[in-house]
């Protein structure tokens, strides 16, 4: 196999020699291929993350907001002791969990229909239909809900049409719950569908043969087998909600601050980057725990 390369190497001059050299030493080729990308990651991305971690242990001059490299744990102490931040963390995690449950409930029957009822053609069409909104500009979709939920929007108009009182959901935590559930729903449908599709028909037939009624078969056979898929989907819905700050800013009201909003305003307004860094570690830690849990439930095999 190396004959060709060597043959070229003999007559091909410098280029050929380099090629031959690379061919004889695979690690060099690996290094050459991987080097630039890896350098990019280490020099820019990982260095940034490490810097962020370090910054969390610094402080700012309260008057000029310049960073002072004094090592301390004050930022973390504030996070733990100040009730406000506890509340914000709990709110963020709570809403992320609520969104996840909502999406799971919405997605399961849909994914079930897609995987086990719909014809092959309908299946393909539905798959595309679920993916399209995912790519239709995030901001556009949030904005659509502002139009729907505001005082003079579609929702109140529709309620009025059926003689119900206006809902006035704009700028509330309910609005955030709806919008997040909407935006991340496709992320739940796809893995759930993938898991459901993989369940062999024979399992269900076996269950039926053993006398299981349909509801029971769903409960005892399908749900446990689909669970890894649902957990996999929940990783997206949970982590994407956890790190968001745009939706709370646009559709949230008073008392809708998320971890992301506090981080954002500490970076962009108060210029307290050390504190923002300390707070930013919270969602990362929460996600790490969540992923550990998800792994135990077999979510990774499902993806």
């Amino acid at each position, binding site marked *: 196999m190396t004959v060709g390369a060597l043959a070229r190497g003999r007559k091909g001059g410098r280029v050929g020699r380099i090629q031959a050299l690379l061919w004889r030493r695979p690690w060099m080729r690996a290094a050459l291929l991987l080097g630039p990308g890896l350098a990019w990651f280490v020099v820019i991305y990982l260095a940034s993350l490490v810097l962020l971690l370090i910054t969390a242990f610094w402080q700012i*001059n309260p*008057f000029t907001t310049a960073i002072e*490299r004094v*090592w301390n744990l004050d930022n973390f102490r504030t996070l733990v002791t100040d009730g406000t931040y506890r*509340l914000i963390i709990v709110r963020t995690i709570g809403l992320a969990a609520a969104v996840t449950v909502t999406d799971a409930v919405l997605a399961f029957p849909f994914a079930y229909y897609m995987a086990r009822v719909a014809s092959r053609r309908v299946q393909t069409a539905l798959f595309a239909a679920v993916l399209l909104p995912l790519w239709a500009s995030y901001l556009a979709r949030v904005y659509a809900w502002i139009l729907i939920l505001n005082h003079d929007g579609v929702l109140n108009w529709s309620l009025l049409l059926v003689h119900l009182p206006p809902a006035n959901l704009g700028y509330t935590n309910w609005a955030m719950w709806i919008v997040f559930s909407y935006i991340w729903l496709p992320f739940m449908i796809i893995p759930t569908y993938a898991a459901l599709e993989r369940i062999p028909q024979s399992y269900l037939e076996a269950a039926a043969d053993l006398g299981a009624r349909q509801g029971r078969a769903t409960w005892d056979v399908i749900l446990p087998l689909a669970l890894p898929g649902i957990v996999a989907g929940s990783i997206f819905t949970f982590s994407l909600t956890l790190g968001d700050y745009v939706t709370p800013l646009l559709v949230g*009201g*008073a008392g809708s601050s998320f971890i992301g909003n506090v981080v954002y305003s500490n970076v962009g*307004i108060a*210029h307290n980057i050390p504190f923002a860094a300390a707070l930013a570690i919270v969602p990362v830690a929460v996600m790490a725990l969540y992923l550990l849990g998800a792994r135990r439930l077999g979510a990774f095999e499902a993806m």
Partner: protein
Amino acid sequence: MGDRLRRLREARGAVLGLSLVLLLAACGGTSTSSGGPAQSQPPTASMKPPTSIGAGEGQLNLIAWEGYTEKDWVTPFQQQTGCQVNAKYAGSSDEMVTLMANGGGGQYDMVSASGDADLRLIYGGDVKPVNVDLVPDWKNFGSQFKAPSFNTINGIHYGVSLQWGPNVLLYSKAQFPTAPTSWKALYDSKYKGQVTVPNNPIQIADAALYLMKTQSSLGITDPYELNQSQFDAAVNLLKQQRPLIKKYWDLASQEISLFTNHDVVIGAAWPYQTNTLQGANVPVADTIPSEGATGWADTWMLGTKAPHPNCAYLWYKWISTPHVQAQQAIFFGETPVNTKACSEMDTLQAGSCAQYHADAPASYFNTIKFWKTPLADCGNGKSDCMPYSKWQTAWTSITG
């Protein structure tokens, strides 16, 4: 206080990379600064301002309050000078300070800073001295605006005064046939879910001003100089207000949309919102309640690393002329610092000079409690006042 600049200079030679990050982290810095102004010269005090204005650079990057860069006076400026104006609206003084400092500065040329941002910008080394001799209209400014303590330190000008005015109570005429007479309306549970106030820690001063007039037992004399118990009272009042709030507005336009869409009926505002809403035929009005008002006195400041200094000086000249001062005053609903702007205002809109107090005596100026940075030093010999960092923390706990 110069150590920030020194550190910046040190860092400038730095090469990108993880090794550097780790190295610096390992060495650590030990510098601490007192966190207060006044003792020393600001870091940029020795920078010599230019003595003449050169050719414009073609661009001018501004950080401004909404309503400060309207096309009525920006377009002719661009045509005359060739300086293309790029404005970014900031929602609060904090955001202005951060934008000026972010990335080590060098992005923006000028900022329309209010009194609570000025000293932070000056002592942060983010703005530099300005040669007022290059601004012909400066000599026509009211005497209290030529070298006010908020933008002039030890005789060095760090900016040129612009306009000033009061924060107002904005209300929907449908809900309030007669104007509310007290800021109490903002704390009234009758309007639950229909109130909006700025998302800005300096809002604590508004609560303090209300308490100053309604709870004399607290002994508040200056809404920006609050000891622990006074501060707690103001913060408590705002915490009680939280359930009434529809949304804390970050930008004036948000408040405008909230009123336009009937999401709110009353709010704390600038006259700019009133003018804009009335211009769009939304039935609203504003008032200064009996307790008085907080307010702002703004200054255009020049960034230490301003990339287009000549255009900046051309802007200084332009924005200080009586006509432009009058245009901005009427558009925003504030008071010009140039005393010659009064007649221009009346030419543009009859009666506007008196309406916006451009002819008012200095005593009127003194009735407004202008935004300033709260410091631990109370200004009365005591130093048990809450510094601004406490205000920011408290504000998060109110709105969170």
